[in-house]
Structures are given as structure tokens and as C-alpha cells.
């Protein structure tokens, strides 16, 4: 909190934080590279808002345009159409070095000829701060990122995780209004990645800086973000909290991309527009929530952990194979009409009835676990 106070009275590019809760507004942004036959659309009509103080994540598979969107916000790429606003101010007129935005680059881009301290102090030096002010701030940042002992080292003398922290400290030091992070954890090993997730989130809360975080890792997105924007092929698929996106995916892509799910074609046999009645695998019928839009059939999503497998399950099935995953086991089963399904069961749980491949059993699920997806 005290950190945030010291940061807030900076004013660069004529941008002041007002009571507006929108940190970034992206309005109808299109971006294509090349022209004519070589024209490639990287971003297709992106509209989204990032709120003040938010940990906002852009999530999507490789090549979906995350980096391009980030580079547009940072100013290294221009839009083909549309507008980007930072606290209500159009960014198009501001050169990258005039935007109160800092970036943690995917490969860190630490200056190899500067020490850690010089790297961290670079932004403040460019802003013309006094030497004592820079020194104090660098110390503070090194403390925040636990790098005090490394101040005099060159980047090449650091481990990957330490370099990642230097990149973070360097980007935070000038107290930007907005911090952009492009897959900053992708080069780290699993353990360090998990640890850095917690640290990043903590630093974001401590500094009160708005983060826009890019990743293709759904676990990373789900565990850190206040809100997530799911992208695919240059289009925005859904924006919402981790829970909204996981529990109520809007379409097939989101349901499939976030977490594991069973996507099953079902017939709509009645009910209302908003509460259709579906028939699954030619068997059971259920009244579920979701927009059917008058269609005769729809794709539904059921998470593996929302299905129970038992001898007296409602839909008969045959167990195909077991995949042991430590805490859980995945049961791959086939329903009566051949529809494959994955059921997740916790290992060592209370009902530890074992099933083996070839066993017949039954699956049961609650209508609340079913989401009807727009195709």
C-alpha cells in the first residue's frame, strides 16, 4: 500500500489516473500484416476493457495474436484500424517512449552490458531522476524481487529465474500505469513457475499496478488472473473471471481450451429458449440452463470431475482405459451409442470402487453440470 502511494504521483505522457475504472480500452482493433495475397489477419475486431488495478490475462494458443495485441498497447506495432485508450487518452499519438507503460519481454531483453542495478535503474535514468532517487528506488525494487545480493552482477551471471525477476524489477521501477508481461514464466521450470505465479500476483497486489499478462498456459491464467480474455485466431472468444470462463464457457473453443471437458452432441427435445431439454447419447433427457436459440441439436460440455462413475450410474457405459495422474485417475469410457467420455475420480477417495478396462458401469451427472454451448 505504501508503495502504491509513492508510485501514484508520476505523470507521463500527460496521463493522470482519474476515478475512471478503465485502465485500458481496446476499441474495434484490427491488425493485419502484409497486403494483397500475403495479407494475414492477426487481430480481428478486438473490443475489451482492462480495469484499474486488475490482473488481466490474455490467454490463447500460439499464433492467436496475443503478442501482437501487447505490442500494439506498448506502441511497437500500429493498429490497422481501431483505437487503444489508456485511462481515457488515445495512445495512437504517443511514441512508445512516451507511454507510461512498461513491458516484461518474453525473452527478458536485459541489457547484457549493464549490471542488474543499472538495468533496473535504466527507466528512471531515462526519466531524468536524480542519482539518489534512482539508487533508493533500485534498492526497493531489488528488495521486492529478492535480488539484493545480485545488484552488481551482469545478466549473463544469473539463472533464468533471476533474470526473470530482473526483467520484472526493471519494468516496475519507473512505476508504470500499466505493466505488460509477455509469457514471462514460459522459460522457467515447473517448480519455479509455480512459485513465480504466487510472487507475481503478490507483487501486483502490493504495487497496485494494472497488469496485462499474456500466456498460453491455462493453469497460469486461472490461478493468477482477476479476469481472463480467451483469444483464438485473432478473435476474442470470451472475457470473464476464471470461474466464469471455466464454469460457463461461452462456446466450444473456450470449453475445449480451458481445462479438460467432454464435448458431446445432444438433441434438443423441448423446453424453453433459455432452459432447453436435451437428450444425451440417445438416452437420458435433462432440463438444463443455456441458450439453445431454437436449434434442434447443440454441443454440450460436461467437466470430467462433475461426472460420477458407479455400478448403478444412470447412463450405462463400458470402461475403455485408465490414465493414472497421481491425485486423480481418468477413466475413458464409452456410452451406449459409442460416445466417448472422460470421468475424473480422485484417488484414495471414499468410494474407491475399482473399475478395470472392459468393466461395465454407469455414469451419472447433475443437470447443473451441463453447459449448452453456442457453436
Amino acid at each position, binding site marked *: 500500500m505504501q508503495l502504491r502511494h509513492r508510485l501514484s504521483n508520476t505523470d507521463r505522457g500527460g496521463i493522470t489516473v482519474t476515478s475512471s475504472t478503465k485502465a485500458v480500452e481496446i476499441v474495434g482493433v484490427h491488425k493485419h500484416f502484409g497486403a494483397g495475397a500475403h495479407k494475414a489477419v492477426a487481430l480481428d475486431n478486438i473490443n475489451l476493457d482492462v480495469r484499474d488495478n486488475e490482473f488481466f490475462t490474455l490467454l490463447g494458443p500460439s499464433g492467436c495474436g496475443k503478442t501482437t495485441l501487447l505490442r500494439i498497447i506498448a506502441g511497437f506495432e500500429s493498429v490497422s484500424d481501431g483505437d487503444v485508450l489508456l485511462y481515457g487518452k488515445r495512445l495512437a499519438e504517443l511514441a512508445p*517512449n512516451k507511454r507510461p507503460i*512498461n513491458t516484461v*519481454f518474453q525473452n527478458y*531483453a536485459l541489457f547484457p552490458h549493464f549490471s542488474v542495478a543499472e538495468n533496473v535503474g535504466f527507466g528512471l535514468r531515462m526519466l531524468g531522476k536524480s542519482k539518489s532517487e534512482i539508487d533508493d528506488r533500485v534498492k526497493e525494487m531489488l528488495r521486492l524481487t529478492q535480488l539484493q545480493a545480485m545488484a552488481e552482477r551482469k545478466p549473463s551471471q544469473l539463472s533464468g529465474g533471476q533474470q526473470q525477476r530482473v526483467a520484472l524489477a526493471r519494468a516496475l521501477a519507473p512505476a508504470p500505469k500499466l505493466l505488460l508481461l509477455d509469457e514471462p514464466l514460459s522459460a522457467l521450470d515447473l517448480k519455479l513457475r509455480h512459485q513465480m505465479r504466487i510472487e507475481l500476483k503478490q507483487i501486483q497486489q502490493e504495487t497496485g499496478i494494472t497488469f496485462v499478462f499474456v500466456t498460453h498456459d491455462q493453469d497460469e491464467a486461472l490461478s493468477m488472473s482477476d479476469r481472463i480474455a480467451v483469444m483464438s485466431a485473432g478473435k476474442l472468444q470470451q472475457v470473464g473471471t476464471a470461474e466464469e470462463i471455466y464454469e460457463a464457457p461461452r462456446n466450444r473453443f473456450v470449453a475445449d481450451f480451458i481445462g479438460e471437458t467432454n464435448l458431446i452432441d445432444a438433441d434438443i427435445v423441448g423446453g424453453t429458449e433459455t432452459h432447453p431439454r436435451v437428450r444425451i447419447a440417445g438416452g437420458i433427457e435433462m432440463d438444463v440452463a443455456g441458450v439453445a436459440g431454437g436449434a434442434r441439436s447443440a454441443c454440450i460440455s460436461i467437466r470430467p470431475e462433475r461426472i460420477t462413475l458407479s455400478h448403478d450410474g444412470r447412463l450405462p457405459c463400458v470402461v475403455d482405459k485408465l490414465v493414472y495422474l497421481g491425485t486423480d485417475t481418468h477413466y475413458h469410457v464409452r456410452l451406449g451409442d459409442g460416445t466417448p467420455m472422460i470421468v475424473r475420480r480422485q484417488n484414495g477417495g471414499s468410494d474407491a470402487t475399482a473399475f478395470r478396462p472392459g468393466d461395465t458401469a454407469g455414469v451419472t451427472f447433475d443437470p447443473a453440470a451441463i453447459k449448452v454451448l453456442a457453436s
Partner: protein
Amino acid sequence: MSRLRNYPGFLGMTIFCLVLLYAPLIIVMIYSFNESASITRWGGFSLVWYEDVFFGAESAKFKSAAWNSLVIAVCAATSATVIATLAALAMLRGGSFRGKSASFALINLPLMVPEIVTAVATLIFFSTIGFQRGLLTILLAHIVFCIPFAYLPIAARLQGIEAHFEQAAMDLYASRWQAFRLVLMPLMMPGIIAGFLLAFIISLDDFIITNFVKGAGIETLPTAIFGAVKQGIKPNIMAISTLMLLVSVVFVTASYFVSKLGNQNR
């Protein structure tokens, strides 16, 4: 590579080429330490000819020629390095612009055009515009043909530096100039130094173009040596040649190590 070695006669061929290339140089070096005034008979080891170069009858001529060579090489290499650095920035960081491939060809043209053609053309050019021939004409001609030699190591180095570094600098509020001066230039430095050293040595031992465009009475070391040789070869020429060879070897080696060192540090 190891296969190549197994070809019959490969070793002999290699030795033959090396001998052909280096035997004359080695003979010159050895005879520069000859006691006698003969250039074919060995009269014992001595440094008299080195003494003669520095203090003998012709020493004044050689000293002023050496001084001219040095001044021209330093100025030409410096100018060429600056121009080559700017050219490399434009070619590799300037995005795409019209006439880019033409510019690239232009920069490297002196490498492809036979030197004698450049020499004659430059001479004709200077006489046509009525430019008084002297040190300045030599310098201008040297700058032009030194550019590609400076350009190659600089461009090679710059090519290996990702654009992320400048973007990171600008992201941290550096102006374009600051991003260049504080981040890109230090990273390019090994290439720049290697380019300078190469341009320096190319200028230092140029003969053909210099001989055409120099003014009357103005000599550089290579033209002075040529002038002296025309009046008969004395061992003092061998001493000078050995000294120049030494300077060349030192500079080329330094240039090689500087760029190699830089690549390791990246």
C-alpha cells in the same frame, strides 16, 4: 573435413599452396636481417637495415610517407566506420525502403569493381572537376573503398542483435538516440572495432588507387616503397616491408579476436 584429408595428394597440394603464398614473405623477412647489402647472399644476422630505415639517408622520406599513411588510414578508417555504421543501421533496422537492394549493391561495389578501374575513374573524376590532387584526394578515395570492409563486420554483428534490446530501451523511456547510444552501440562495439581495424589496414597498404590520385611529391608508405624499389632493391625495403607486415598481422588478428570475443560475450 576428415574425409578431405584422406584424398591422396591433398597434403602435398596444401603444402605447395602454402609455400607459394608464404615463402616469398618469409624470405623477405629473413633477408631483412641480413648483414650484407646483397639481397641474395646471406652475410650474417644484423639489424643494420632497420637502423637504416629509421636513421639512414632515406629515413626522412620514409618517415614522412609513414606519417601520411598513418594520418590517411586513421581518418579514412574513422570516416568509413561512421558511414558503414549508419549504413548498417539503415539496412538492418530501417525497415524496408525503396532502393534498398540498390543501396546494398552500392555499399559493396568497391569489393567487386577491379581496383584499377576505380583508380582510373577516380583520377578522371578529380581532374574533371578540377580538384587539386594531394592528401585530400587520397583520403576521399580511401574512405570510399574502405566502407565495405568496415560494413561487413558491423552488419554481421548488428544482424545478431535482436531488436528487443532497443525496444526494451524505448519501452523504458529512452529516445531513439538514447536507445542507440546507451544500448545498441555498446552491443555493436565489437563489430565497429573490427570494422575499423579492417578499414585501417586496407587503407594503410593500398597502392593502386593511392598511386593514381596522389598529388606530386606526396607519398604514402606503399608508394614510397614502390618508388625506392624502382631505383633498385636494397635490404632496407625488406626491413620496411617486414615492419608493415607486422602491423598488418597485428591489426587483422586484433580485428578477428575483437569480433570473436564480442560474440562470446553476447
